[in-house]
């Protein structure tokens, strides 16, 4: 598999690997940053969650748009590309929703609550 083909695959499936990765990282930050939020009275947890939501939205766009470029260039069976694209886009939407909820929760709480 050459580099361009690999890149295409990665961008088609971005919603299924990149979005969960961002969400998982934010889950871990959610265990670490409350202490920072409490000490400095900042909203670091909220900011990282919203940045994460922006990134997962980007991965959804990548998943949605990539196969449209590929299919135009080939004549083969497009089922897998379409399928991967739609499944990835929908999944990325779900992770975006989870990250937005996390960001909103982090806006409400100070990080000091036990």
């Amino acid at each position, binding site marked *: 598999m050459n580099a361009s083909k690999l890149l295409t695959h990665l961008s088609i499936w971005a919603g299924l690997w990149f979005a969960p990765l961002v969400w998982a990282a934010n889950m871990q930050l959610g*265990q670490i940053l409350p202490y920072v*939020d409490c000490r400095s009275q900042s909203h670091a947890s909220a900011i990282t969650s919203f940045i994460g939501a922006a990134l997962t939205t980007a991965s959804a766009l990548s998943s949605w748009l990539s196969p449209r470029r590929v299919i135009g260039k080939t004549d083969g069976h497009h089922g*897998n590309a379409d*399928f991967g694209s739609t*499944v990835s886009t929908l999944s990325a939407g779900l992770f975006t929703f989870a990250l937005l909820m*996390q960001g909103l*929760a982090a806006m409400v*709480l100070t*990080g000091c609550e*036990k």
Partner: protein
Amino acid sequence: MKPSAAAPEQRDIDVERAQLTDALAETWKTPSGLWGALATVDHKIIGRRYIFTAFVFLALGGVLAALMRIQLAQPEARLLGPDRYNQIFTMHGANMMFLFAVPVMEAVAVYLAPLMVGTRNIAFPRLNAFSYWIYLAGGALLWIAFALDMGPDVGWFAYVPLSGPQYGTGKRADIWAQMITFTEISALAVAVELVVTIFKQRAPGMTLDRIPVFVWAMLVTSFLVIMAMPAIVLASTSLILDRLVGTHFYNPAEGGDVLLWQHLFWFFGHPEVYIIFLPAVGMVSTMIEPFARRPAFGYLGLVMALIATGILAFGLWVHHMFVAGLPRLGDSFFTASSMAIAIPAGIQIFCWLATLWDGRPVFKSPLLFIIGFIITFVIGGLTGVMVASVPFDTQVHDTYFVVAHFHYVLIGGAVFPLLGAVHYWFPKLTGRMMSEALGQWSFWLIFVGFNATFFPMHILGLEGMPRRIYTYQPDLPWHGLNLFVSVSAVILTAGFLLFFINVMRSARFGEIALDNPWDAPTLEWATTSPPPSYNFAMIPVVGSLHPVWDDRDGLPVADGLRTDRRELIVTTLATAEPQAREASPQNSIWPLWAAIATTIMLIWSIFSPWAVVWGSIPAAVALIGWFWPKGTPEDES
């Protein structure tokens, strides 16, 4: 010299149909007698054994549940003392989760997945045989220990320090921990087999968007097993080390961390719920099609929901630890994820409802169990959203509300679909139909009995009745509801008894089944009921998501496979294009010997750490025997 090297290769295209099936039957057969039974690597025989054994454990766990309900029917009952009660609720939970729920779902896949993807055997069939023996040994260990009054008494989650060396005296906690090792080895082995089978052995043409939903569900489940179960293996092993050789993983006085246990356990424990639930989603999505008489609505949405649920499942574990004193902001992240997972679950529910709405439903037993599943699972899901909220969970934590919730999710979400699946695939397994009348009776008894048993537990929980108490005082306001629950449990038990009677009776006297009695669209129905040892005389070629519906005159087939050795087609991961002809291993007794050696090592290691050293020698010998070339055609690459 290898015999096959000198003899000409015999291929399926060179022989007539009758000769072909004879030759394949000879090549793929399991010899009769004890030796053949112990050495078989046929996924169908092993799958049937797995399913049967898991249902035996279900029945045993049910007996324990009945004992608990008799004890709790009256205040200050004297049937069970506190020690025996502790053992019983621990055994009930551990048995149902580790010996029934997970294994039975994998067992169904061991039987069905190779048929549904159109191949002749599961990948790594000897590992499959090994996994069954190890599972059986783990179950026997737990139940023999219980019979000897050495049953674990630390809850199915075995929290430290209760299960640690300070409080968990004797060998009870070690039995629990080592039972975990047995069952997790078995589950991991099956998961690896399923991933490889689904990725590399699909019939030509079965692209990603043509994989049956049940197979997708098992693929996601297998990845969950592979990623979640090492956490519990690590936890149980470190617990044994704390107890046996004096390490301090969970001893705060020496730098250990008690909460580490909870994190490790629930990092496994929450995905475990989805390891049980996702196969059920796959079963329902597959079964609903012939009974709604239309394709399942929203295939893409169903698959997306499966994958997303599988991933989100790893971000929920702290909702079991909301009262452990972690920062509330961190907890809220897990609340958010717990709420978010309701979306894919909702998508699935709406897809099934839409399928029924737009279809022409035939209300046979499997569909009744599907409808029962939808109703109970929605109730369990709603209470799940309630306990995902920290303030509410703090109030009902460790009460009967939670007992009600997880029984709704696990029985509603997994057992109802499983019972439907037994009715649905019984003809495939046995060649006989189950009694429809008994099936309907058992459904209604189970549905009514289940709801009457478990719904009042919500109220008991809200009234403050804690979990895991062996009795309660007469002046507490729980007596009436507890009596009602116990009486209702009799109805539930009657339903299960009727189900078992139906299975046993139908296996012997049931009406002979057609090859495809439900007019179902997936590949397992494209072969005979029950299937021959080689599954398919010719490997089918798939051109759609519903191949049996779309090619009613007969599926196109791929040819060129050898008939004089066990051979199957390996295809590409995404597009399922044929890549190679691959040998499939023959029957072997070595997996059994390896399982016996591993069992001796694991049980011995409860008593001495040196067991790992000396016990590894027979295990290594068994593995060498297992992989030693036998000079058969299957050894050729």
